[in-house]
C-alpha cells in the first residue's frame, strides 16, 4: 500500500531549500510531479500552515505537509523531500530534515495507508535510520518494505 502511495518521482533530495515554506513547496511539488495533485493543492497546504502554524511537524525533524481532501487532489499519494540543510519551522521539533507531503482524495480511503505509515515510522529505530540515511533507494525500501 505504501509502495503505491509513493510514486516514481516522490522521493528526492533538495539542495536549494532555505526556508520552511520553500521546503513545503518543494515537497508538494513531488506530489505534482507524480500527478497526484494539481498546482492548486500547494495553496491549500500553505494556507493551512499560515492559519494553524507548523503543526504538521509531528516528530523531531519530521514534517507531514498536507491539507484537507478535495481541492487540487487527483489521487491519494505521499512524497518525501530530504533536505541537505534542515530548516526552521517554528515548531519545538525543529530543525526539520524530512518533509513528507500527503494528499487524500476523500476522508476515508487513506486511513489504512496512514496506519501502515504510522507503523513503519514508529518501529524501533526507524525514525533515526530515516533521518540519517542519505541514500534515497534505501529510504524508499525502508518506507515501502
Amino acid at each position, binding site marked *: 500500500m505504501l509502495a503505491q502511495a509513493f510514486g516514481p518521482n516522490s522521493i528526492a533530495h533538495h539542495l536549494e531549500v532555505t526556508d520552511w515554506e520553500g521546503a513545503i513547496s518543494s515537497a508538494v511539488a513531488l506530489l505534482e510531479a507524480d500527478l497526484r495533485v494539481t498546482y492548486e493543492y500547494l495553496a491549500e497546504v500553505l494556507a*493551512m500552515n499560515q*492559519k*494553524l*502554524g*507548523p*503543526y*504538521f*511537524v*509531528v*516528530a*523531531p525533524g*519530521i514534517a*507531514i505537509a*498536507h*491539507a*484537507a*481532501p478535495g481541492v487540487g487532489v487527483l489521487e491519494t499519494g505521499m512524497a518525501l523531500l530530504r533536505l541537505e540543510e534542515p530548516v526552521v519551522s517554528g*515548531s*519545538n*521539533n525543529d530543525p526539520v530534515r524530512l518533509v513528507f507531503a*500527503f494528499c*487524500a482524495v476523500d*476522508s476515508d480511503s*487513506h*486511513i489504512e495507508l*496512514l*496506519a501502515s*505509515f*504510522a*507503523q513503519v*515510522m*514508529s518501529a524501533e529505530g526507524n*525514525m533515526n535510520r530515516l533521518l540519517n540515511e542519505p541514500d534515497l533507494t534505501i529510504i524508499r525500501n525502508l518506507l515501502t518494505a
Partner: protein
Amino acid sequence: MKIYAVCGAGIGTSVLLKSNADRVLAAMGVEAEVQAVSIADAISAESLAQIVLITPELQEQIKDIRSEVIPIDNIFNLEEIEQKLTAALS
C-alpha cells in the same frame, strides 16, 4: 471511553495519531474509541471526548474545552503516548 485525535484538517496528523493511540491502548488493555477529528469538532459543544490528543502547536486553540487535553510532541513515539495516556487514565 471516547478519545479524540485532533489535527487541522482531521485527515492527516490526526489519523496517524489515532493509529498509534489505538495500538498503545490495545497493548495497555484499555477499551476506548479513538476518533480522528478536526479542531472544529474537538471544540464543538457536543464533543463527548474524555481525552483529546493533539500536537502542541494546536493546543492553544482548544484550551477552553471540557476534555482533558494531552499534547503529543512526537506522534511516532509509542512510549510517549503510552506514558501520557497512562497518567491521564490513572
